[in-house]
Structure formats: structure tokens, C-alpha cells
């Protein structure tokens, strides 16, 4: 999988956060080139996790309140949730290997 499903509505965002387990939200904007290069990395990590990690993307310009609530100051920003609670954040491009290490470390905390 090279793409992430886009949380296009507030309801979908709420539903994603309400689910249990690890969730990565890839906060992006349409004009962000680095975000487009980042997306396949996040998607690959989710696929390779065999369901242990869910991942979606979220347009910061569409979800301004969400971005403000989680203090997203630039894109791409990754927000890592466990059972709906924010446990980590990371900005800028990351390789899939770096993401696997980061998520693994956060999940063990």
C-alpha cells in the first residue's frame, strides 16, 4: 500500500481516535511535497505491522481546529496515539525504518 486513507470529516477523525490500539495520524497539506513523499513510508509501516498500527492522513487545512488542538505547527507532522491518547509527535520527513524504531520505542514506554 502506498497511500493512506484520508480522514475527510470530523466524524471519521473521532471514530479513528475512539478505536483502541496504536494510531498514526499523518498531518499534511495538499501543497506539501515532502508530505507526499512521506505518505508511502507511513503506509508501509502500517501494512508491515500486520494491523498492530493503524495509519490515516489528515489535511491540516481542512481540520484547522484539530491542528490547533494538537499544536501542529508544520507539515508533515506525525501524531502517534494509543487508545486515543497522544503519546508522541514527530515533524519532517522520516524513513520507514526511523518510523518503525520511533513507534516501537513509544509503544514500549
Amino acid at each position, binding site marked *: 500500500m502506498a497511500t*493512506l*486513507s484520508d480522514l475527510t470529516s470530523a466524524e471519521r477523525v473521532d471514530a479513528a481516535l475512539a478505536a483502541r490500539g496504536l494510531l498514526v495520524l499523518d498531518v499534511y497539506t495538499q501543497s506539501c511535497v515532502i508530505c507526499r*513523499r512521506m505518505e*508511502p513510508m507511513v503506509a508501509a509501516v502500517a501494512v508491515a505491522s500486520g494491523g498492530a498500527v493503524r495509519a490515516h492522513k489528515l489535511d491540516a487545512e481542512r481540520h484547522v481546529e484539530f491542528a490547533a488542538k494538537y499544536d501542529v505547527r508544520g507539515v508533515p507532522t506525525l501524531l502517534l496515539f494509543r487508545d486515543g491518547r497522544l503519546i508522541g509527535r514527530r515533524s519532517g520527513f*522520516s*524513513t520507514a525504518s526511523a518510523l518503525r524504531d520511533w513507534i516501537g520505542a513509544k509503544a514500549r514506554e
Partner: protein
Amino acid sequence: MGGFTPAELPHHQGRDLLSRPASVTRPRREEQACRTRFPFQAWRDISKKLHDKRLGLSWKRVTVFATALVMGNTIMTGQWSRDASTPPFIDLVPIEQATGARKELYDEMERVRGHGRVSNLFKAYAAFPALAKANFQRLMVLLSQGNLSVKFKEAVMTALAEANKCDYCVSFHATALRNAGASDEEVVAALEFDPDRIGLSDKEKALFNYALKANGDPHSIVPANIEELRRKGASDCDLIETLETVNTGNSFNLINGALNVGPDDFLSYLKGRGEIWKKSA
């Protein structure tokens, strides 16, 4: 353009890098045709052929078997994410119609890669023959010289093709990656951007991630990243070789995408990526 002798191709000794892996069989002409026809027509043809062979199967069993064949064929081969109904935006002159400088390029490619193995990418490039020859020569230098393995370079180009959503390029480089000694599982690992499962050396694993980082955001590379590579034994030449692999993969992805260039007839491996991307979007 000067040719390359087998001695200058140390990694593959002049053998055809794009010949099919032993475990990957090329679809028969009949099966290939199924992919291009409307599925029902393929299903009907297969049903009829099964029945005509008088295998003692009931029509019900023939129907189930034919349906499974058609579905399996569709799932395994998929369709390109490009709009196949739209022709390429540039003239891809067939081998038999090439003349002059274009023919010289095609001849050189067939000499290196094998009969009929002039890729659509280079048929497009050949609109500017001198540039096409220079690019092919550059590609051959990249793949045949330097310190890093062909397996590493093809793994990087396979990963880039996946990241750039160039389904033609995925099939092309995954085929070359298999022929460089990778298993199917290692090809999948490249598509999942996981160098730990590709069977690379520690240095090449680190360089694989460096390549992805350079592709993702070259300005995000900091001294600590380079120091880590140095600890793994990476030389200046290794860095240049890796970055040129990224350049090459990206430039091919871009040209194929921007000119709507489709797959080569001689490719049969991992052709279904476009469909997977579409479904996951």
C-alpha cells in the same frame, strides 16, 4: 557511443539483467490476451476451452474453474494505475521502425540487454538520441561500476518507484532486483522500505535509508546522518553512487509518469501495483 564489454560489467558479467527470474514464468500469449480483454470475454473463452477439452467436468465445475482462473489472473497481474486507454504522449518508435541515431541506440540496448529488450522508457528518450545514449551509458556505468551491489541499487530504485507510484518502474526494477539475486520476500521488503529484510550488508542498509531520506527531503540530512554512514564504512564514492541511484530512479519515474509511458511487453513480474494503490486510496 562506446559499447560495454562483459569485463566492464562485473556484477552481471554482461548477462541480461532483465531476463526473467527462474521462478517467474512469463504469461503465455493466451493469458496475456486475457488481461486486455473484458473479463467476461476472458471468462467465456476459458469456459469454452475447458468444455471443448472434454475433461469430464460438468458445466458447473467448468464455470467455477474459469471464474477462479479469471479472478486469479486479474488479482495477480492487475492493471496499470496509468489510464491504459490513453496512449503515451510521445511516439514510442518500435524496434523494427527505428532508423539512424535511434537505431544505433536500440542496437546498443539489445546488445547489452538482449533481443527485443528496448524499454519503452528509452524509446521515449530516443526522441533526443544523443541524450538517450548518454543516459543509457550513465545507467550502465551506475550498474556496472562503483562499490555497491546491483542488488542494493535495484532495491533502492524499486523502493523509489513504489514511493513515486510508478507502476511500470516497480515492475521493471523489481524484475531487475530478482535477477540481482533477491527473493520474492526481499522484493516485498524493498516495497515496504525495510532494508533489514533485503539481505544487504550493514553499510548498504544504512545507505538504503540515506537514499530514502535524500529522496524525501535532502535538506533534512544532518552531519549525524553522515557520521553514522561513515561508521558503517561508507566512502565518498558510496555516497555519490547512492545519490546517483536516487537521481536515476527518480528521473525514470518522472519521465514515465509525465509522458504516460506504459509497461514493456517483456515484463511480467509485479504488474499489479497500480491496482493496489488505487484500492488503498
